[in-house]
C-alpha cells in the first residue's frame, strides 16, 4: 500500500471525524446555553434537574453514554435499531455530553458579569431580554472563548470514541491500516492530521478572540 493510499484512506476517515466535530459543535453550544439557563433558573426543580443532568453527563464516560444512546432503544424499549442510526447516535451522545460541559462554561461567564450592569440597564429602560442579549451575552462570549477553545480541541480528539459503536472515524482507519500493513506509518500520519486539525481550530479561535476584543 502506498503512502498516497494511506493518506487517502485517512482523509476519508477525517471526513467522518469532521462531521462528528461540526455537528456536535453546532448543536451542543445552543443546548449548553439552554442548560446553563436551567442551571441558573429560579425554579428549584428545573435547577435541580439540570444539576443532575450535568452531574451524570460529566460523571460517566462518554463511551458508556454512546452505548446507552445507540443500544438503549433496543435494550430498554425493544425497538429494533438500524445501521443508519449509528452516526445519529454518535451525534446525540456527543451533543448531550458536550452540552453539559459547555453549560458550565456559559454559567461561569454569565455569573461573572457584575450586578451593576444589570442595574444600569434597568435604569436605562432595557427589558430583561434586551439586557441579556445586547449587553451581557456579547461580553460573556468574549470571556469564555479560551475555555471553549479548550473543549473544542478536546472534542477533535474525542471523535475517536465513535468507534465504540462502530462508526469508523480517522483513528479507527489508522488502527486498521496499521494492523493490515504491520507498520507505524498510519499512526504517525494520523497524529499529524490531528495536530493540523487542532492547529486550524486554535488559529480560528484566536482570530475570533482578536476580532471580539474591539475595546482594546
Amino acid at each position, binding site marked *: *500500500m502506498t503512502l498516497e*493510499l494511506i493518506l*487517502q*484512506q485517512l482523509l476519508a476517515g477525517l471526513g467522518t471525524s469532521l462531521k462528528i466535530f461540526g455537528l456536535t459543535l453546532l448543536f451542543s453550544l445552543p443546548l449548553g446555553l439552554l442548560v446553563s439557563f436551567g442551571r441558573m433558573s429560579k425554579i428549584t426543580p428545573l435547577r435541580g*434537574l439540570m444539576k*443532575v*443532568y450535568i452531574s*451524570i*453527563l460529566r460523571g*460517566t464516560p462518554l463511551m*458508556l*453514554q454512546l*452505548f*446507552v*444512546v445507540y*443500544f*438503549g432503544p*433496543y*435494550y*430498554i424499549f*425493544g425497538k*429494533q*435499531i*438500524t*445501521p443508519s442510526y*449509528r452516526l445519529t447516535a454518535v451525534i446525540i451522545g456527543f451533543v*448531550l455530553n458536550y452540552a453539559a460541559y459547555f453549560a458550565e462554561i456559559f454559567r461561569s461567564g454569565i455569573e461573572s458579569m457584575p450586578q451593576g450592569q444589570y442595574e444600569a440597564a434597568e435604569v436605562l429602560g432595557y427589558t430583561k431580554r434586551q439586557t441579556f442579549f445586547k449587553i451581557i451575552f456579547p461580553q460573556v462570549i468574549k470571556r469564555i472563548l479560551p475555555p471553549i477553545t479548550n473543549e473544542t480541541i478536546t472534542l477533535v480528539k474525542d471523535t475517536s470514541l465513535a*468507534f*465504540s*459503536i*462502530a462508526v*469508523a472515524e480517522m483513528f*479507527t*482507519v489508522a*488502527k*486498521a*491500516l*496499521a*494492523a*493490515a500493513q*504491520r507498520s*507505524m506509518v498510519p499512526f504517525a500520519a494520523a497524529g499529524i492530521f490531528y495536530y493540523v486539525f487542532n492547529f486550524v481550530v486554535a488559529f480560528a479561535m484566536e482570530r475570533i478572540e482578536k476580532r471580539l476584543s474591539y475595546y482594546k
Partner: protein
Amino acid sequence: MKKILAVIMASAVVVGLLSGCGSKEVEKASEEIQKAAEVVEENLEEGKGTFTVGFDQEFPPYGYVGDDGEFTGFDLDLAAEVANRLDLELVLTPIDWDAKDMELNSGAIDCIWSGFTINGREDLYTWSKPYTDNSQVFVVKKASGIEDFDDLAGSIVEVQTDSSAQQALDSEEFAELKATFDDYILVPNYNQAFMDLESGAVDAVAMDIGVARFQIEGKEDTYRILEEPIVSELYGIGFLKGNEELRDKVQEAMDEIVADGTFAAISNKYFGYDVGLSE
C-alpha cells in the same frame, strides 16, 4: 426532561446488563429470536435483503483493510460468496470487539464472522458448522531463547481481551502455567500486542496461529511460534442464539462452497493451502 430521564434509566439498565444480571436477558431472548426471524423474513420477501456481517477489522488475514483500501480477508471473501449465492446484499460492518454481543443482540449485525472461535462459546451463539481449525500459540522473539512452555516462566505474556487465547489461558488447565508468568497483560487488539513484542515491552504474545503467521510473515528471522499449541480449536460463524433460520441458509451455501472447490480457492489465496476441515 423526558430525554434526561430516559438517559438516567438507560444508564441504570446498561450498568445492570454489564454487571451481568441474567434474568432480563432470558426474558428478552425469546423476543429477540422472534424479531430476528421477522427481519430475515421481511428481507427475503422484499427480495433485496441484506446480510450484515460484523467483524474485527484488525484481524488479518481473516478480516482487514486490503492494499486497495477495501475490506478484505479470508472470512470476508467467504461471506461475500455466501451472500452472492443467497442473493443477498453483503454489508460489512467493522465492529468494536467489546461490543460484539450488543451489536448482535440488537440486530445491528446478522452474524459475527471474524475468525470466531466456537470452543468455550458453544452455548452463547447459534453456530454454523466449523469451517476451519485454529490453534492458539505463543509468539516470541527468537533472540529471547524461549522454546517451550517451561521457558515462559518469569516472562511477560500479553493477550487480546476476550480472545480465545485469553479464554484458554484463563481456564483452570493453564492456571499453573499462568502462575509462572512474571506478568499477564490484556490489550485491545493483536496489533498492539505485536507492537509490544516488537519493542520488547513483553516477551510473548498468545494468539491465533493464522494471525501469528500473517504477523511474522517476512520476519521469520526475528520471531518464533512455539511448536506446542496452547489449545486447538475450531472457527465458525456465530449467529444470534436461536436464529436457526438464517444459520441454515448460510450453512447450505457454505456446504456448496466447500463442495465445488470455491472454499479451497479462497483458502489458497490467503494461506497458500486448503485450511478446510476434512470430515
